[in-house]
């Protein structure tokens, strides 16, 4: 439109067909400005949607009838049997992308041509390279609601199949991608089998409990599971999610409300049960990570639980320290980092020992993703803390070798 050689015309409007590299070009520019090449960046929470390759996953589903039923469902309806979908919670109501306002949240439809690797690996690599990420831990978006499936055996079968597919077909192809196998808590025997079978496999850096579920995490049926995870040395991550099917969430009429509370509410419940029932005393070497609840909830919980515990100590008899002291030894992912009030953010970072316990997470490609600049731009963090949060804390937690392309 102009002959001035200094002027280059750009795409006027992005949509879900836009190439990730174009969508994230400003992130690439930021990574250059911040010198991210000089940092080891681990993204502890990123997402891929398994729906697009569910047929591949089903090859690993063990029960032949459930596999057949799942294939029939996929052929007829395009949906994943046993998985409440579309998220959140199977309610059929979802506006994560704000009805197209945030197109990268909708199913990514960009072209992937001329590469032999799996499409989702290519999409992840495009995002990692643009953002400046060295290693990325991937979680399956729609399976975050699998714990709400009415069929526990369906959850177990789907989880096992997905875990095997991720490890054998996905992570094996791309060493920069890491994975935490899904634990179907309602099937403790299967969860235990998953730990025994997948701990130590290439790419496995921990185990996952999806927090949208009504399983009391202190139930005696899980103690053997926790003991064996503790023995592996790998962390146990509780990944939050949204649900509109919870009775409290049903009182809300806007997704903004459900998203704001549901993503924190579930982890508040599980953390309270975990602490008050003395799980940190029973499994002192088991490292616990709270994923995608942001950070602002943590000092609230520290204050709330300490205040209650000092008065009602008899109801938490296994504790020998304040709840907040156990919480300071846990790990938290950063995203979505509530950063609009820097004074409150600084108090939060101090409360959670962010320099050693906070783990950068992008949540890409979701609508509330955070870039490394969200950490690098914090004025009260020193250079060492920023490097720790962006990658070195995760490298220690996951026993990663520092450097690009770590094994």
């Amino acid at each position, binding site marked *: *439109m*102009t002959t*001035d050689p*200094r*002027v*280059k*015309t*750009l*795409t*006027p*409007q*992005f949509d879900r067909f836009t190439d990730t590299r174009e*969508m994230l*070009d*400003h992130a690439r*520019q*930021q990574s250059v400005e911040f010198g991210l090449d000089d940092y080891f960046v681990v993204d502890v929470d990123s997402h891929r949607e398994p729906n697009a390759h569910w047929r591949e996953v089903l090859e690993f589903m063990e029960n032949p009838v459930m596999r057949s039923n799942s294939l029939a469902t996929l052929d007829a309806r395009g949906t994943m049997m046993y998985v409440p979908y579309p998220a959140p919670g199977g309610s059929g109501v979802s506006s994560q992308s*704000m009805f*197209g*306002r*945030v*197109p*990268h949240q909708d199913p990514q439809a960009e072209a992937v041509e001329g590469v032999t690797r799996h499409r989702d690996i290519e999409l992840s690599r495009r995002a990692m390279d643009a953002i400046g990420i060295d290693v990325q831990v991937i979680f399956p978006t729609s399976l975050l609601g699998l714990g709400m499936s009415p069929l526990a055996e369906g959850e177990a079968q789907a989880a096992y199949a997905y875990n095997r597919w991720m490890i054998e077909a996905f992570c094996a192809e791309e060493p920069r991608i890491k994975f935490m196998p899904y634990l179907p808590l309602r099937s403790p025997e299967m969860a235990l089998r998953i730990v025994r079978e997948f701990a130590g496999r290439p790419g496995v850096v921990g185990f996952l409990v999806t927090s949208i579920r009504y399983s009391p995490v202190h139930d005696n049926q899980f103690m053997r599971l926790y003991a064996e995870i503790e023995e592996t040395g790998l962390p146990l991550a509780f990944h939050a999610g949204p649900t509109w099917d919870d009775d409290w969430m049903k009182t809300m009429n806007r997704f903004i409300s459900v998203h704001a509370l549901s993503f924190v509410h579930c982890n508040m419940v599980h953390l309270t049960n975990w602490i008050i029932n003395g799980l940190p005393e029973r499994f002192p070497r088991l490292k616990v990570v709270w994923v995608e609840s942001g950070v602002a909830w943590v000092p609230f919980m520290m204050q709330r639980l300490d205040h209650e515990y000092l008065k009602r100590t008899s109801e938490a008899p296994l504790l020998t320290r304040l709840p907040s002291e156990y919480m300071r030894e846990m790990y938290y992912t950063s995203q979505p980092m509530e950063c609009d009030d820097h004074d409150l953010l600084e108090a939060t970072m101090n409360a959670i020992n962010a320099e050693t316990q906070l783990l950068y997470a992008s949540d890409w490609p979701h*609508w*509330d*993703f*955070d*870039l490394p*600049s*969200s950490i690098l731009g914090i004025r009260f963090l020193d250079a060492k803390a920023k490097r720790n949060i962006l990658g070195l804390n995760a490298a220690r937690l996951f026993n990663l070798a520092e450097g690009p392309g770590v094994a």
Partner: protein
Amino acid sequence: MMHGQVVVGRSAELADGDRLVVDVDGTEIGVFRIDGALYAYGNYCVHAGGPVCQGMVINRVTERLDADKRSLGDAFSDDLHIVCPWHGYEYDLRTGAHPGDPRVRLRGYQVFEQGGEIVVEL
């Protein structure tokens, strides 16, 4: 960074309701024509630096109340918004201001037409 006047396009190629997004020697700018008037903003969202001018243009959502303050549901107003495609921050296209916090405001540029060309003052 450049300073001065730069021709970013031809007037005839920017119809009413359309936009032009350009990179001028490393500075990205979006030019919008709304009801005949031109508006130009830096293509960097205040929130996280996202490519705001390459997002969806959509009317502002409002909520109507009756005389008893009961909700009558959502409606679109005449205000046009540009929505950052990264995280959804919305800005009034005529003022550059975020509807929820007017202190959050896009960087505006002077833009005018001269001899059938669109000129931005950097």
